């Protein structure tokens, strides 16, 4: 197994930031850890890589116990950390070559691998550019290429697309899909639900250090939430208070569950037909009918209030 985590706990002082999480990665699968800021995603990955000692629990990475033999296990793991850690003193190519040396890869073999890695990152034209001159998306792609220097079986990526514009995110997704189709095992963290839904075979939603839902995106959606969502917003003709007022008087009647957030009512339903017919007959109200997605599950399970603020 690429990775098995069993009942992992991690405390800093009196605060327990990881509170008993367990999951296992199957070879060739893409597994996403979802969670709001401060949920414990990075801490979990640091434990997995042997960068910090768990307070309790067992970790096996590439068949080796962590932290005891983490260093040996990392020979077969590529890591994309949350923060940029590229070497600013070097060019793009040099970053790859120097990193290969940390894996004990001979210089000639490393040099032979560079063109493939540059092509993967789409950085052929930037081969001799210094790192500080790269855009955020290029740095991310170079960090991914760097994680691949030793041709690892398992890739661990902490928020690979955070802070990137849509073009850059799509490019990264593309690369990640490529890696998945090559049969690599991926463990990634994200707070983008669409990213997880798009890429991951299985997800785990992490909140306050605990896994509160786990499975394929479809399973998680089916288990935790009604299949359809109708978002209602705008003015309500002939009534004060718009969509919120409508929700207060009518939403419960037409939906299994509803929530009002700001000016919008979210109605969760098994079947939307009756609700849609009702809404069509109301003046002014606008509405959006769509299938439930992971974001709905996430908001249901972790609440709508901000974290870490």
């Amino acid at each position, binding site marked *: 197994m690429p990775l098995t985590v069993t009942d992992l706990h991690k405390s800093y002082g009196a605060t327990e930031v990881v509170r008993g999480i367990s999951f296992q990665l199957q070879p060739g699968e893409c597994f996403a850890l979802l969670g709001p800021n401060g949920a414990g995603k990075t801490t979990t990955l640091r434990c997995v890589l042997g960068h910090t000692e768990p307070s309790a629990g067992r970790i096996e990475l590439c068949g080796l116990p962590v932290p005891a033999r983490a*260093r040996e296990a990392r020979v077969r793991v590529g890591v994309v*950390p949350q*923060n940029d850690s*590229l070497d600013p*003193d*070097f060019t793009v190519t040099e970053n790859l070559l*120097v990193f290969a*040396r940390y894996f*004990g890869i001979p210089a000639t073999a490393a040099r032979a691998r560079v063109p493939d890695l540059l092509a993967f990152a789409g950085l052929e034209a930037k081969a001799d550019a210094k790192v500080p001159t790269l855009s955020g998306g290029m740095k991310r792609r170079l960090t991914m290429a760097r994680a691949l220097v*030793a041709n690892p079986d398992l890739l661990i990526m902490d928020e690979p697309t955070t802070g990137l514009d849509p073009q850059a995110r799509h490019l990264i997704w593309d690369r990640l899909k490529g890696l998945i189709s090559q049969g690599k095992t991926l463990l990634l963290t994200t707070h983008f639900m669409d990213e997880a839904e798009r890429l991951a075979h299985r997800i785990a939603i992490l909140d306050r250090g605990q896994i509160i839902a786990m499975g394929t995106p479809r399973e998680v959606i089916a288990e935790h939430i009604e299949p359809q969502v109708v978002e209602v917003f705008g003015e309500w003709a002939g009534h004060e208070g718009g969509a919120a007022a409508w929700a207060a008087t009518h939403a419960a009647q037409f939906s299994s569950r509803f929530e009002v957030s700001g000016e919008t009512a979210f109605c969760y339903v098994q079947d939307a037909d009756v609700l849609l017919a009702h809404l069509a007959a109301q003046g002014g109200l606008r509405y959006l009918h769509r299938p439930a997605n992971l974001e709905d599950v996430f908001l249901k399970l972790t609440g709508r209030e901000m974290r870490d603020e």
Partner: protein
Amino acid sequence: MSKLFVPLDLSPRRALAVWQRNLKVWSRLAIPSLLGNLADPLIYLLGLGLGLGALLPQVQGVSYISFLATGTVAFSTMNAATFEALYSGFARAHQQKTWEAIMNAPLSLDDVLIGEVLWAATKSLFSGSAILLVITVFGLASWQHALMALPLVLLTGLCFAGIGFIATSLAPGYDFFMYWFTLFISPMAMLCGVFFPLEQLPAFIQGAALVLPLGHAIGAIRPLLLHGEVSGLWLHVLVLLSYALCGVAIARVLMRRRLLR
């Protein structure tokens, strides 16, 4: 809290990779870097050696400029190792996350720290050697003696790199290093006989040179350069080595506490 006292996990090959990384960065700036390292001691040597030296009779049986030059070798080796361990070390360990990146590869904190200490010592050996070269060219020491001094220069570098990383592991930012220089490095230059003989100081202060590492670096390097022999060489070597090892041992625990908590 992670365990602080763990067995050493070190391989020479892996530490060498860290050393090579730093050499690669340095090599493209080698000439300006060496000239920069030389400028400061040369200004001291020429200014004080010629200017002040003209006023002074012989010092400890040699000309003042010879006395000063031989002290300067140890002094600037110390400075080179200290600057590398503190400022460049801080950038790599904390600011630009170079250590974090390396530890995501199959390297341990010990590999990285030891590689860095060896590098800082190597870099100080480069600048110490450059000064030795100048001294031999000026005829202030023989080249045989200068060659014999190289291992002591390296050991001096190791010593100050080792203890320098204690400061690096504690520093919240670059400003912290001012304390290291004003409270430790600069007083040591005054107390350990770089610019004038220890005998000029009150007796109770002279003892400081017996415990401070720079005193032992100068105690070994100066007589070797001037006369080709050192009394009590092994004591000096032992003290410098102990400082280097204790420095690394302490920095290792502090770095672990900071980076792997």
